[in-house]
């Protein structure tokens, strides 16, 4: 019983060694070519039909993409997103009643600068992809990741979706502000899609510094994902798209789900892995490939000549313990070998997750994480595990300033307080230090307090990522500017809080 190899291998492998002569489970005539789930064998033609049907069924079932919608396809060159592109092409060429009716565009984000590709290599990769894109006839945008440095700070602000009305007068004002803000960034520029935008060398270097300033590969990954998503959303906004299709397949989502949990993103799971993600308000991210396993996609691409372009990424040729993402991937794929339902089991779990309150667009922008734009998960009860983590961190590490909230509960020893660098103003922590960024004087010149300042604006997981960075100075301007704005805002709100007719305040006054 305890010998795993003996028992399980006999049961799983030996029992069903399929033969070459096995027939397709669907037409029961042609000989099988692909094994999809354990035991389900498909012939070439039935596999194609099944694959194409699944894409249309996914879009039909979820009813998020309306006819005439402008949809931006985020294509990375990888097999999943290229397969998605070919499915959209397929869907648009179908006869009347099956036809997809949205207007697609393609965006490719060139991350070559971050992963250390030379300019020549980048030009070659882009040329290869442009050939693929041009063949589709869809409009396409090639955006170098370096453009993330020029983003407006409205990217990390959730824009209101047009259908919902703000609830209170204050929120209306905020919405007005947001509207005007997002309106200002809606200036479509005439970018010639055939020519690659010239990237200044300095920008590439700045970006490299930013990524290298994260000490672990895990944090670098996380950071890159965040920046990429900001740039995608920004491109969609400036080019007038309302939906963005991402190519995440179900194997990848299963890995992402477990990775997210390990990274402390439990609260954001539903948005990170669900079919649609409306955290940006006006732009909805959609994952239509989430029903396909990586295997199905690789086989389809191979059998039906879907071109994909391999581009090295941060974790190319790294060992399986190089990052949490990599380790999770190897865990899931190894388990999948002996237990073929691993991925689907994890994936079904992600399907059951729902965003309870996170998707409401009336939320104040200051309740959102500065980086991932999800609802902050750090405002929990005093008894939450987050608070417990903070307390133990504070007790075990003297170099982190104490937070006021936990201070009251567990007064820190005096020597701990005095060892905090650069004076007492930082040790007050919490909401009190918000004025410091604004004034930009005193202790803010040292790096440590700057990090703590961002902390109150970040969700738990993004806070961990930032903690892994040697310095936040390398962050793009739009993030730092937005951080300052939120600080000022929360300070102002604190100052005028007595005069606000907020529900909570009214209640207290009435008491």
């Amino acid at each position, binding site marked *: 019983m305890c010998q795993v190899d003996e028992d399980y291998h006999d049961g799983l492998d030996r029992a069903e060694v399929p033969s070459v002569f096995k027939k397709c489970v669907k037409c029961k005539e042609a000989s099988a070519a692909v094994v999809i789930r354990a035991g389900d064998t498909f012939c070439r033609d039935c596999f194609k039909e099944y694959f194409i049907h699944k894409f249309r069924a996914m879009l039909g079932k979820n009813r998020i993409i309306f006819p005439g919608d402008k949809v931006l396809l985020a294509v990375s060159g990888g097999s999943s997103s290229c397969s998605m592109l070919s499915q959209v092409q397929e869907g648009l060429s179908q006869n009347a009643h099956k036809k997809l009716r949205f207007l697609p565009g393609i965006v490719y984000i060139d991350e070559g600068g971050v992963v250390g590709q030379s300019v020549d290599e980048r030009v070659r990769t882009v040329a290869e992809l442009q050939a693929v894109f041009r063949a589709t006839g869809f409009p396409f945008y090639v955006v170098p990741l370096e453009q993330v440095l020029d983003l407006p700070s409205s990217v990390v602000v959730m824009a209101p979706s047009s259908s919902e009305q703000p609830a209170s007068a204050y929120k209306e004002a905020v919405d007005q502000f947001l509207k005007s803000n997002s309106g200002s960034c809606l200036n479509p520029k005439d970018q010639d899609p055939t020519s690659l935008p010239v990237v200044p060398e300095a920008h590439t270097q700045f970006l490299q510094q930013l990524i290298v300033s994260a000490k672990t590969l895990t944090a670098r990954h996380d950071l890159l994902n965040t920046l990429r998503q900001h740039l995608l959303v920004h491109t969609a906004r400036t080019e007038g798209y309302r939906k963005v299709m991402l190519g995440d397949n179900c194997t990848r989502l299963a890995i992402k789900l477990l990775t997210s949990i390990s990274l402390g993103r439990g609260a954001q799971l539903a948005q990170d892995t669900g079919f649609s993600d409306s955290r940006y308000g006006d732009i909805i991210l959609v994952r239509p490939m989430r029903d396909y396993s990586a295997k199905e996609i690789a086989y389809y691409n191979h059998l039906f000549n879907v071109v994909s372009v391999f581009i090295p990424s941060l974790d190319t*040729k790294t060992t399986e313990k190089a990052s949490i993402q990599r380790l999770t991937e190897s865990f899931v794929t190894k388990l999948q070998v002996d237990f073929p339902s691993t991925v689907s089991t994890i994936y079904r779990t992600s399907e059951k997750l729902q965003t309870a309150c996170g998707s409401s667009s009336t939320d104040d922008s200051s309740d959102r994480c500065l980086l991932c734009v999800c609802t902050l998960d750090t405002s929990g009860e005093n008894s939450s595990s987050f608070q417990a983590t903070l307390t133990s961190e504070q007790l075990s590490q003297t170099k982190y300033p104490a937070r006021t909230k936990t201070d009251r509960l567990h007064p820190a020893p005096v020597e701990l307080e005095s060892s905090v660098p650069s004076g007492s103003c930082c040790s007050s922590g919490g909401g009190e230090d918000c004025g410091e960024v604004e004034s930009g004087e005193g202790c803010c010149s040292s790096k440590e307090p700057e990090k703590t300042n961002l902390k109150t604006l970040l969700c738990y997981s993004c806070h961990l990522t930032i903690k892994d960075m040697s310095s936040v100075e390398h962050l793009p301007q739009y993030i730092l500017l937005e951080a300052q704005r939120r600080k000022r805002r929360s300070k102002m709100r604190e100052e005028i809080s007595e005069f606000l007719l907020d529900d909570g305040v009214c209640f207290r006054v009435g008491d």
Partner: protein
Amino acid sequence: MAAPIAIHLEFGGGAELLFNGVKEHHVTLPSQSEPWDLKQLLVWIQRNLLKERPELFVQGESVRPGILVLINDADWELMGELDYQLQDQDNIVFISTLHGG
């Protein structure tokens, strides 16, 4: 004594990086006393073609989990996986589905 057999190997999805970036290989396997099977092919690839980091391609006797194998455009699970006996002019494809190849 089996005669030498010529086969076509293809690497994709990033797996080609371990082979100097070359995707397609036409190789001839030398004659040996018993017929060639896939398990022996993997050992042969590891000794003769693989340029670096063998652990990223082979693990144990089989390919690394996450790398798919197609034999003549069919899933190798249908062909008996490692026990498949190679024929002359066979087409074997290795596709990595792992992130970053």
